[in-house]
């Protein structure tokens, strides 16, 4: 581990001070190689896909809340989806499949990795851009056609894939079981292309972090968000090829009649599950680790304290990333694999609770004896901690194999995954977007509407997902079109209706975020360079930073989250400022918030 990283390989990338070329509109906004623009492109793309995924969720909740009743606006959809506005079971299967697919692969993953990876890595390590800017551009322009292809599958004959986002074979391996032929193939191809987008991104992030850190930026001076994104990129680089391989096998089963997963001719359905979850569990951590990094940083900023146990946090990220590879079998306790294998996976799974616990305690430690400023990013980060605790603890139930017999494939799992991916990842994303918005767009989002969005989302979110634990404990299975078909589930209808109404309210609060987000780009208050009085390198640049980011290569003098250093005049000591423990810099643009 060298004290200073060498830059020789990437000297051709110019810093802002050396850069004067004026770019055409197309090179600047569409086929841009600037990491910040690509980050923003990913942001717009994922927010649109998230909106679509949210609309699908609303349709699912309509059917569960008001089964068999015509959906408002449902008559606008084709007869093959909702004749007379009533959602068909076939369409419901497509909806639950595509809701999961869009939210996981086209919303949460690109938001965390595509947006924050692109935006933060070069800015926080003092680099003018990514190591491979053109590869970076390719990464985005692979994701767009992939998403459009996925969306288009709704409108082909047979409709979109209906075998769940996990695409268990042989349901997914032969069109005769679902009546979906083209839709399933488009699903497979679209994900295959998206995998390449992830891989090109991951190569870039890893190379950039290893090679392009500014002088003085040692590994243990990296902001936790960069640590998390770096480890995530390694996970993506190793996991996505496994998915790609599995997708090819499933595609040839479906389209060319091979029999990898179709048992009629000797194939093995469980092989798909092993491959899928060997990719899928690292994927789960791809979907949460960056949010953990972002949240650590924002909690420290809000509490005006260094991150408690910085090194423990780094080791916990590494431990989660390593253990994440040997727990995939916990998705398969009831799958029919050897039950004794289940015992092995139970132990590895239960051990992964430990690094998660370490992170929670260190977040609490960060707040302890702080001087907390409740800005919108902090509120969302605190919500992340509060909700991740619930998602983490509900995971312990599933890890115990005998208890998992009862709750697997019920709404308990639906509650768990949404506490991790919505309560966790998405609140982390809200925290990250509101925190770095001024750096992205040069303006501030509206604080009051930000708080209204936060409060409304936090309350309605819990009203939607907390009762789902009860649905699961009462035995309501996942992915069922109409629970009333089971007499013993009929008494849950009022609860289901309550959840649906809460979900519509939750959706409405997201519109506030969308409007605030778009409105503030043009009409938001002009942002200062360092509006949150933060310490990491991106805040030394103008808001927004020019092409090339820094006037010249910055030098790093201290750790990443140095707040309230004794003897310093300000309560934050930026990484780029020389001098004793946080001597204030005359060039610094501090503003109150």
């Amino acid at each position, binding site marked *: 581990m060298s004290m200073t990283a060498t830059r020789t390989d990437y000297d051709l990338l110019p810093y802002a001070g050396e850069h004067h070329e004026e770019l055409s509109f197309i090179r600047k906004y569409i086929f841009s190689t600037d990491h910040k623009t690509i980050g923003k492109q990913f942001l717009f793309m994922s927010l649109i896909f998230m909106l679509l995924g949210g609309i699908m969720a609303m349709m699912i909740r309509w059917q569960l809340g008001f089964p068999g009743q015509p959906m408002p606006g449902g008559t606008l959809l084709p007869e093959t989806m909702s004749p007379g506005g009533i959602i068909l079971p076939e369409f419901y299967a497509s909806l639950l499949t595509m809701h999961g697919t869009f939210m996981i692969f086209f919303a949460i993953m690109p938001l965390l990795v595509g947006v924050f990876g692109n935006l933060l890595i070069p800015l926080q390590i003092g680099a003018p851009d990514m190591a491979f800017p053109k590869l970076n551009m390719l990464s985005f322009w692979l994701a767009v056609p992939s998403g459009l292809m996925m969306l288009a599958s709704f409108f082909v004959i047979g409709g979109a894939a209906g075998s769940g986002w996990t695409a268990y074979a042989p*349901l997914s391996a032969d069109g005769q079981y679902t009546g979906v032929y083209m839709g399933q193939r488009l699903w497979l191809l679209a994900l295959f292309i998206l995998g390449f987008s992830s891989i090109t991104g991951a190569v870039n992030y890893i190379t950039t972090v290893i090679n392009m850190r500014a002088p003085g930026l040692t590994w243990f001076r990296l902001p936790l968000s960069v640590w998390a994104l770096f480890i995530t990129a390694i996970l993506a680089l190793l996991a996505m090829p496994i998915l790609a391989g599995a997708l090819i096998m499933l595609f040839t089963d479906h389209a060319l009649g091979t029999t990898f997963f179709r*048992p009629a001719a000797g194939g*093995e359905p469980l092989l798909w599950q092993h491959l899928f979850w060997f990719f899928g569990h690292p994927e789960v951590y791809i979907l949460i680790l960056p949010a953990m990094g972002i949240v650590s940083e924002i909690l420290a900023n809000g509490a005006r304290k260094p991150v408690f146990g910085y090194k423990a946090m780094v080791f916990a990220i590494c431990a989660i990333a390593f253990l994440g590879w040997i727990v995939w079998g916990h998705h398969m306790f009831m799958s029919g694999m050897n039950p004794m294998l289940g015992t092995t996976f139970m132990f590895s799974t239960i051990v992964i*609770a430990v690094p998660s616990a370490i992170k929670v305690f260190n977040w609490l430690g960060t707040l302890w004896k*702080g*001087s907390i400023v*409740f800005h919108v990013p902090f509120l969302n980060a605190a919500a992340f901690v509060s909700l991740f605790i619930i998602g983490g603890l509900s995971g312990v139930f599933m890890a*115990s*194999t005998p208890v998992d017999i009862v709750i697997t494939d019920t709404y308990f799992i639906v509650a768990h995954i949404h506490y991790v991916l919505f309560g966790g990842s998405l609140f982390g994303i809200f925290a990250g977007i509101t925190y770095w918005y001024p750096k992205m767009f040069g303006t501030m989002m509206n604080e009051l509407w930000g708080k209204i969005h936060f409060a409304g989302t936090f309350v309605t979110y819990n009203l939607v997902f907390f009762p789902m634990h009860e649905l699961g404990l009462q035995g309501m299975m996942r992915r069922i079109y109409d629970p009333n078909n089971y007499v013993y589930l009929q008494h849950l209808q009022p609860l289901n209706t309550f959840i649906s109404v809460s979900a519509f309210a939750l959706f409405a609060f997201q519109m506030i975020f969308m409007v605030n987000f778009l409105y503030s780009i043009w009409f938001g208050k002009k942002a200062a360079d360092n509006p949150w009085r933060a310490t990491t390198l991106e805040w030394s640049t103008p808001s927004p930073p020019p092409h090339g980011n820094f006037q010249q290569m910055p030098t790093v003098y201290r750790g990443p989250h140095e707040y309230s250093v*004794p003897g310093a005049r300000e309560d934050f000591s930026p990484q780029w400022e020389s001098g004793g423990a946080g001597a204030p810099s005359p060039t610094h643009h501090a503003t109150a918030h």
Partner: protein
Amino acid sequence: MNWMFPQSVSTFGPEIDRLYYIILAITGVVFVLTEVLLFYFLIRYRAREGHKAEYNHGNTKAEVIWTTVPFVIVVGLALMSVGVWKRIKDPSAFPPNAYQIIVTARQFEWEATYPGADGQLRTADDFKLLNRLNVPVNRPFVVNLESSDVIHSFFVYPFRVKQDVVPGMTIPVWFEVTATGEYALGCAELCGFGHYSMDGTVMVQTQTEFQAWEATQIAARAAAGVANLAAAGATGAPAN
């Protein structure tokens, strides 16, 4: 919020429920503790005039404690789970002399095959039921699960039984029911658009009732022949 499991009616049900309540108690305590601390810190350490944050990078002793304690607790939970899991799922630990049937799942129905007069499965005198199982109370019962199309999952909540049914495999699952009555059988794995409608009934009878029922089935099977079974079964009524 109702955190209770509905009543279980199988021999190993209470063991699973006990584990569940232990985990519920432990996670409940951790939940309350961490959430209370979080909200207490948020209120207690809010920014105020004259109040400054403490400059603190962490505490190794604290890290060791909050690494070790969760580790011991979760490994303890795993150790408590091992024996129960083995007793329920390991075919070599199944009780001997269980009554054996085959259940074949297909989109979107359950077909049960009983051994018939010779007591042997997969012989000519087997008889079949559709979307219905008859089970004797207080007797170990093994269901050999097979699928003729996609993956389904055999789920009878009051028995605390859930097992995926995988085409190309025969997966045995056992239970011993402790109370007579009618219980819902459901499919817990997405198996196509009709997944929600793949329900059935498990009728648990006293051993005398069961034997009488079995005898009438065997007699009916002998009288009717194979051909009528599918038609009779389609109504959901016992074949006769």
